[in-house]
């Protein structure tokens, strides 16, 4: 079959009488500013009387702090303050990061700076504040900290053994969280299977390596008792709430401002100990204090993620029917659950998502989340998806190989059909409307699958080993309050937008979701322009300031377009309606006979321009004397949106990777990569494609290169940019992206998330491609990153 019909269940409806921007790829308003070096990141900001802080961090995984001698450090030029955990604990409350809906989850109280004990290499212990960064670093050399080493829990496999020391004795064990899911008939399903494939998977610890390190400026204005924090952060309102609560002040006393953010990916959606420490220091000094993590401390203090060991099985019939999945996941999360999202969510997601695209009827999963003396882990782009997808898709490929079926064909036969929705997945997740069949068909054409298989076959005869890997995936986006809110975390699942007509006819839109580079400001501009009926050039979007924008959750879980975008659409439409009412009064006509069209008030039937939007703005703001006494124009409109129909709106997609493996060296060359993505309505195709490409490369990094390597004492061995291998340009493939658009009916806009699917599917696609290339040798590798060392070992060469 070469020609494939594309099925599109829910057709896209027009969102306005004159759709000009939504669905197109106009230029990003901020792009020109950034290519001319006119961005404004936290480290670019210099406030009057601003001081600089550096932290002494634990050099070992676990120790008792026996003595801190700051005498010499305090004598150094420019030093303003040296403070430790006891000093800061006086003004900042400790926190315990658990969620009510994660049954029996445990963690221990955590402080801005370690008190008595340091629990991981990189935990902040002492703060040194000086007039300049150089002076602070100079003084740090003279700080004397004495410590006694304590036994470290490094290996998650033995974290729960009785002989393993307890990191938090008061908790009784090193178990943070566990979950078991069982549909009941799993053993029967495996007994009925023609083939059972069983594999152990390993996933290395990653970290985000945002190019701009974590940074903030905390400015406590003692006179008015107000805190302003310039923060490179994804969730300004969440941080406002946390600062207010931990320091016992009113929310109204806290303002969080996020200007340009140099990449976040989940690294900057958490509340770190040094975030609170920097604020505390500003309060103690009554001066602005800037903290910018240096790259070496980023590696041990930014959250890590992904470290899982999974034993998994699949049961399959000879005809290709998948009967069941069964898996056991162990993950190590560091000594504390991360504040406030907790470190149990990633493992929980793996349980929810394994087997996700398929219609099998039996599933069993066991999850253990354990404490260890390593950098805390938490939500990072893809949260659990890359693990669940790699486990699922590798097992599906093994099943296909066992029964001699084409990998594309076995997926075609087992995915939940496009006409079966809405329905529930076997783990209990609710699906609104997915398009696995359409996406597989689209991929088959996009990559010219059969020609590629022929090429692979021909090259094998010449001793060139290429492989094709396919990965179908589901991605959780547009979360409802079920994600965090129900668990008691004050993390908003709703977002808001205020649209305001300005006197000159321009429209200002203030949105609670910020810009991290993914282009949210651009799509909000597009949506607002279409919704109101003005040119994009007339729209100005403002984000990232808790004092200016409506209250909302911010940027996480691929919700910027689906949640924030809907709020902008609703606010824009409401403003348009109010503008028509105003025009009706001014022109003495019925509102329904008028419309707003490209910056003008027009006759809705003839589209004949009647007056400019600027003219009704002028009258509304400056000549209220011309308006009837009983009419007040409402030209600032706020609308909020929360997705309430489903716990999450799932998206789906499928990726393929084409690689060449050198069996002599174990080196892998990435030749091509394809992605077909269904994120519902595509608001800006170029931006969505770029989100997917960037996310795919981030996923490839984890599959082939990235890993936080630790020794048996819990010390990180490659905590620098040269030894922690992030993907660079030369090795990465060209990536072709195509779309199937199945809009969600849970919103008017119909947009789902697109930010994480690339990361979710890439590791699975690449791992499957490598194992397809290795198939002639009858070996496979399932430990990521898939290094030359591991591939050569699998091949028996070393």
């Amino acid at each position, binding site marked *: 079959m070469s020609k494939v019909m594309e099925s599109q269940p829910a057709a896209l409806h027009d969102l306005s009488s004159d759709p000009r921007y939504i669905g197109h790829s106009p230029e990003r308003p901020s792009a020109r500013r950034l290519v001319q070096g006119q961005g404004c990141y936290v480290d670019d900001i210099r406030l009057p009387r601003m001081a600089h802080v550096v932290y002494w961090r634990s050099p070992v995984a676990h120790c008792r702090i026996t003595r801190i001698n700051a005498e010499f450090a305090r004598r150094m030029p420019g030093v303003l303050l040296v403070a430790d955990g006891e000093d800061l604990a006086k003004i900042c409350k400790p926190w315990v990061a658990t969620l009510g809906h994660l049954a029996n989850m445990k963690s221990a109280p955590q402080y801005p700076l370690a008190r008595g004990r340091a629990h991981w290499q990189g935990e902040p212990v002492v703060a040194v504040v000086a007039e300049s*960064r*150089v002076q602070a*670093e*100079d003084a740090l*050399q003279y700080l004397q900290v004495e410590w006694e080493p304590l036994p470290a829990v490094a290996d998650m496999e033995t974290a729960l053994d009785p002989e393993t020391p307890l990191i938090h004795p008061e908790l009784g064990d090193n178990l943070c969280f566990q979950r078991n899911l069982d549909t009941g008939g799993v053993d029967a399903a495996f007994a009925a299977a023609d083939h059972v494939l069983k594999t152990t998977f390993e996933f290395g610890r990653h970290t985000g390596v945002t190019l701009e390190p974590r940074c903030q400026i905390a400015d406590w204005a003692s006179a008015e008792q107000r805190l302003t924090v310039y923060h490179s952060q994804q969730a300004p309102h969440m941080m406002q709430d946390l600062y207010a609560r931990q320091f016992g002040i009113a929310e109204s006393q806290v303002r969080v401002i996020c200007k340009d953010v140099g990449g976040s990916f989940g690294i900057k959606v958490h509340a770190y100990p040094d975030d609170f420490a920097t604020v505390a220091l500003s309060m103690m000094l009554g001066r602005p204090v800037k903290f910018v993590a*240096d*790259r*070496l401390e980023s590696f041990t203090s930014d959250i890590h993620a992904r470290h899982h060991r999974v034993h998994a099985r699949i049961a399959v019939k000879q005809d290709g029917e998948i009967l069941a999945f069964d898996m056991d996941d162990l993950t190590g999360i560091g000594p504390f659950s991360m504040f406030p999202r907790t470190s149990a969510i990633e493992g929980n997601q793996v349980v929810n998502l394994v087997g996700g695209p398929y219609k099998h009827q039996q599933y069993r999963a066991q999850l253990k989340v354990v404490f260890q003396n390593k950098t805390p882990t938490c939500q990072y782009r893809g949260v659990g998806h890359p693990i669940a997808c790699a486990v699922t898709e590798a097992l599906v490929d093994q099943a296909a190989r066992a029964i001699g079926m084409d990998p594309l064909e076995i997926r075609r036969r087992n995915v939940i059909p496009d006409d079966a929705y809405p329905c529930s997945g076997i783990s209990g997740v609710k699906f609104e409307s997915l398009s696995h069949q359409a996406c597989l068909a689209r991929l088959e054409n996009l990559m010219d699958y059969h020609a590629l298989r022929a090429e692979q076959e021909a090259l094998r005869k010449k001793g060139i080993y290429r492989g094709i890997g396919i990965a179908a995936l589901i991605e959780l986006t547009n979360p409802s309050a079920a994600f965090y809110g129900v668990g008691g975390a004050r993390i908003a699942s709703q977002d808001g937008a205020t649209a305001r007509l300005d006197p000159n006819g321009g429209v200002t839109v203030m949105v609670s979701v910020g810009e991290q580079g993914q282009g949210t400001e651009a799509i909000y501009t597009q949506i607002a322009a279409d919704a109101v009926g003005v040119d994009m050039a007339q729209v100005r979007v403002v984000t990232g300031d808790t004092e200016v924008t409506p209250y909302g959750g911010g940027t996480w879980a691929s919700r910027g377009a689906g949640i924030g975008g809907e709020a902008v659409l609703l606010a824009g439409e409401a403003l348009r309606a109010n503008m028509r009412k105003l025009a009706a009064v001014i022109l003495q006509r019925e509102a329904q006979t008028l419309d707003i069209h490209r910056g003008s008030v027009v006759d809705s039937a003839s589209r004949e321009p009647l007056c400019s939007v600027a003219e009704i703005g002028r009258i509304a703001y400056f000549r209220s004397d011309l308006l009837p006494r009983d009419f007040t124009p409402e030209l600032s409109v706020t609308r909020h949106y929360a997705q309430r129909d489903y716990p999450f709106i799932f998206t789906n997609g499928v990726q393929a990777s084409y690689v060449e493996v050198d069996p*002599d*060296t174990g*080196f892998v060359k990435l030749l091509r990569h394809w992605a077909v993505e269904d994120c519902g309505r595509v608001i800006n195709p170029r931006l969505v494609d770029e989100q997917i490409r960037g996310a795919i490369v981030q996923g490839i990094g984890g599959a082939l*290169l990235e890993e936080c*390597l630790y020794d048996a004492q819990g010390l990180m*061995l*490659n905590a620098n940019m*040269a*030894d922690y*291998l992030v993907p*660079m340009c*030369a*090795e990465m493939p060209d990536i072709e992206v195509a779309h199937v658009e199945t809009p969600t009916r849970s919103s008017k806009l119909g947009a789902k998330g697109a930010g994480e699917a690339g990361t979710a599917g890439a590791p699975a696609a690449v791992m499957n491609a490598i194992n397809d290339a290795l198939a002639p040798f009858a070996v496979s590798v399932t430990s990521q990153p898939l*290094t*030359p*060392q591991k591939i*050569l070992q699998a091949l028996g*060469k*070393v």
Partner: protein
Amino acid sequence: MKSPEFDYVKVRTLEQAIALLHANGDEARILAGGQSLLAALNMRLSEPSLLIDIGGLSVLRAIAVHGAFLRIGALATHTDIENSSLVAQHAPLLSLAVGRIAHRAIRNAGTFGGSIANADPAAEWPCCLLALDGWVLVRGPAGERRIAAADFFTGLYTTALADDEILLACDLPLAQRDDWFGFDELARRSGDYAICGLAVALRFSGSVVQSAHLSWLGLASTPLRSRRTEALLAGQPLDAATLQGVTDALLAELDPIADLTHTGATKRHLATVLARRLLEQALATRQGLQPGMH
């Protein structure tokens, strides 16, 4: 990450540099390209009281033929070497290797002499210098001396250079008509230090290998010559039997040190792969199956 405090002198003459080095001893450090030194300073892993910047001594940047040698000034940058037709003609091995050194921004600043003096066991230049049996020219208060590459690299980041000596240049024997050179390395990312790398210098008489130099990077605490294997190659034709012999000899001779992600055994295996591939390339070239590389 900001450097600790230090004084800085940009010297106008070599004599001035040597005098300062002599006077300040261990507290002074020579600044050439600075691509390793300044990173170390940023991390505060070193606290010299004086940096002696020799960057202004243009006399040290020359690349020129001196008798039977190509002399490469200590301050010649990697990019200078990349662009030099003299290097391509007389020391083609360097032209083959230079593209593998880090990335352009580093190659623009990093210097040949700096790399040699830094004696990084995974760096390309020390490996090439050793492969070519080149010489290192140094000058101290006592005057100049010439040190053979084989005697220069004494340990991990340590060389025969005395504390008060400055590296002036390196002399590389001019490539001859019957010479064949090859360079290859295995790095997971372009520009990274390699897991393992090999520089090969062969002199043929007809189809027989007259002399063979196999110089390795990334395997030990210094660049390394596999001399037992070289001896085995000398006087042999590059046929299948010889190639197999080379592989066996290397397995017996090499005992690489592991790195973070590759065991010694893996490096040994990869070394044999590199050797086989480069020697097959040499064979193909000699048989005229492909245009001569040089």
